[in-house]
């Protein structure tokens, strides 16, 4: 970190209004927002800001005038006036009128935010500890579902690797939406309350278990928009970012089609037997992305218990699969059965049984996972 910039900023901020110009490379104001609603909200924000600024300048001017000119050390004799109904009425009515002026545009923007009618695409967003699930709802029932996890590595977080440009703000699989299309978000949660926020889209909605909240956006320009969970949801609340890619309609359609064929391919892959090396390699990748935050990079444990030497990882395969697929109710160990493909589940279980000194030699195939799920 640059101490010099910081020191400079400290000095300037003493002037209270000063920091606005300091640290020019740092964003200090609300995102303007790429959407129409975003721009309206930004406008409201600036309007109320300037109203406050003007009132503030007036109030502080009077105050500092008093502080400078009405001081005892200047030998003034204090006036003794007090109480004036007229003055009291004036300074009650004027703010009241300003507030009415403010309430009008605020109301119309709010109504706009709430208007989720006529959306072309519906996406069900579900908050999990600590990732998002996106489900593109399809009238034919051919939904596309995937999870979106933090892509930043533990090494970056724990300062052993250099931090990348989108540190803590990039995911393995972003949400993709087409531009110029009204997209409706149906927001809910699986465990605790989360909140789905993308500042540039000006969308923030709490994801509450048992409720489905609605929000919408219509993005005019292609681009990558990033956000974060904004409701405290447990230990890794700071590590469940959001990444939205707004793309052209064609690109979106192609992406959706690819996702659908991926789904078909995965079902097919689940029928095939894989080699040990292959399972271990993809198992390691899945482990690092999905499990290491709680079970430790070396299987040493953390929020979850140690995998190295774990009785379950060294015991029966069925028991291990059970924990992986169904989770452990009432703990942070969630049911990964619906989150990982059968191939990934097989790989990560194989990996856990053979890494960190757990040399069971067991190979778990995707077919075993499918069978286990079917009971």
């Amino acid at each position, binding site marked *: 970190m640059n101490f010099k910039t910081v020191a400079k900023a400290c000095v300037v901020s003493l002037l209270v209004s000063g920091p606005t110009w300091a*640290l020019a490379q740092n964003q200090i104001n609300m995102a303007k927002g790429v959407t129409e609603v975003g721009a309206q909200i930004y406008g409201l924000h600036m309007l109320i800001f300037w109203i406050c600024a003007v009132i503030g300048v007036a109030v502080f001017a009077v105050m500092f005038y008093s502080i400078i000119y009405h001081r005892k050390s200047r030998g003034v004799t204090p006036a003794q006036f007090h109480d004036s109904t007229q003055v009291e009425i004036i300074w009650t009515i004027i703010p009241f009128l300003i507030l009415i002026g403010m309430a009008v545009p605020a109301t119309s923007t709010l109504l706009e935010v709430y208007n989720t009618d006529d959306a072309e695409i519906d996406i069900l967003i579900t908050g999990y500890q600590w990732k998002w699930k996106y489900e593109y709802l399809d009238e034919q029932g051919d939904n596309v579902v995937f999870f979106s996890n933090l892509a930043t590595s533990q090494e970056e977080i724990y300062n052993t690797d250099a931090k990348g440009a989108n540190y803590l703000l990039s995911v393995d699989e972003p949400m993709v939406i087409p531009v110029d299309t009204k997209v409706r978000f149906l927001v809910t949660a699986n465990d605790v309350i989360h909140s789905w926020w993308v500042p540039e889209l000006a969308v923030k909605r709490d994801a509450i278990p*048992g409720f489905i909240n609605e929000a919408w956006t219509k993005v005019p320009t292609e681009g990558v928009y990033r956000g974060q969970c904004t409701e*405290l949801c447990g230990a890794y609340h700071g590590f469940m970012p959001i990444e939205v890619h707004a793309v052209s309609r064609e690109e979106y359609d192609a992406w959706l089609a690819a996702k659908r064929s991926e789904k078909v391919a995965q079902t097919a892959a689940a029928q095939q037997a894989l080699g040990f090396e292959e399972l271990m390699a993809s198992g390691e990748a899945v482990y690092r992305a999905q499990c290491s935050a709680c079970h430790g990079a070396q299987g040493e444990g953390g929020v979850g218990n140690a995998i190295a030497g774990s009785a379950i990882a060294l015991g029966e395969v069925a028991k291990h699969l059970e924990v992986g697929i169904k989770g452990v109710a009432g703990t942070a160990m969630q049911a990964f059965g619906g989150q990982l493909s059968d191939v990934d589940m097989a790989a990560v279980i194989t990996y856990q049984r053979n890494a960190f000194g757990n040399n069971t030699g067991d190979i778990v195939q995707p077919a075993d996972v499918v069978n286990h799920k079917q009971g």
Partner: protein
Amino acid sequence: MGAHHGPAKGMSRWLLTTNHKDIGTMYLWFSFAMFILGGAFAMVIRAELFQPGMQLVEPGFFNQMTTLHGLVMVFGAIMPSFVGLANWMIPMMIGAPDMALPRMNNWSFWILPPSFLMLASTLFMEGGAPAFGWTFYAPLSTTYAPPSVTFFIFAIHILGVSSIMGSINIIATVMNMRAPGMSYMKMPLFVWTWLITAFLLVAVMPVLAGAVTMMLMDIHFGTSFFSAAGGGDPVLFQHVFWFFGHPEVYIIILPAFGVVSQIIPAFSRKPLFGYASMVYATASIALLSFIVWAHHMYTVGMPVAGELFFMYATMLIAVPTGVKVFNWITTMWRGALSFETPMLFCLGFLVLFTLGGFTGLMLSIAPADFQYHDTYFVVAHFHYVMVAGAVFSMTAAVYYWIPKWTGRMYSESMGRIHFWVSFIGFNIAFFPQHFVGLAGMPRRIPDYSLQFADFNMMSSIGAFIYGASQLLFLYNVIVTIVAGEKVGEDKIWDGAEGLEWTVPCPAPYHTFEVPPKIDAVSAHA
């Protein structure tokens, strides 16, 4: 007790005392201890946030720190400090010999330390301390909570009982113990603001108790008040919590308003501009505070009609709040101002609280709040109102009345140093939080993306300065008590008004055993 009866000796003086001054002193020291403890938690938070990446603590422990910091500061530091001040000052201000219910007074203090001991002990329990934020939203605080949550619930119950007893005592004292001639509209504003605060407390602490009891039932007795899986409603928790929580923020600030309304006229050597309108403004703030709670919940998905109602009501609160600020400034206008430490802290309050009021007004605009909510902008807002509001005014009160309490004068130069270091540290710590909040940094996160790094480092530096300045405060107070210059006259500040300045310094153990005569003109300051 007879008129010549002094304090008992040794520990039993403090354990068994029913004297309002002793109890006030204990409250003040206890709250200062909690202020230091809560401050230590804050230092851990700011040290971890000094740089991006995880350096000092694990994310789970970080959440325990933010949770305990909030709980300890709100319930352990700010609230008891004002109760302590009420104990000391209200009987002296209304010409009463003591509080109306002195034995209950002893009890309402002495259940506090065990309650906070229990809360702090959760840090050493299996699964750690509560980590769900001071707002403890279900189901994070129920189904997903560490086992220590049960102790947290018990602690909240006890401190709620303490608050209720304390406020009943204040209400009983103000209603029954005023000296003859001390009519309601002659009471000092500090007494008025506390009377109204006490009613707020009696109204909302049971609601908080209800919320934690429902949690207890959900956790241990199979109910599903807040669990959607069992047919309950997690949002219900937020409604119940904020029905307590919003009035709670006014419980914190109204006594502070009272303090400032005593001190500004004293150092302006001019009566408060609009005494009656200040009383009405306080009462209307208190009433409005019951119908604005859901402005903390704009993003939960309320129906739009509800959203609009809470937005309009919240905006309305700015009007009486503005009346207060205008009144203080008009009081200073054409006075003869001097700037001793209590006045400096009041001016600090005035400037910074007004900024906090402005951000409050911005937050009240529901659509804009979609962008502000749960970001550092909110953190900045409430630190401007709670630290620069409540804590600054409490500090002003200590400097203002300490000669009355101890019979000794604090060192003016040390007081001024304390003020300037606090003021500067505070602003370096919290002003940049407006920027990172607007730029998109969520609150309650242990690590952040790189664009927030510079301002966070600055904020941490400011926090360390502000933290250190509190040690200066402790030093000043101790030096005053043991070595401060003895004061001779009853009235320390030439512009001060009120009955407390008619008794000697230090105030004798028993005051106003014979009710004073109320001078019709100068009764209220």
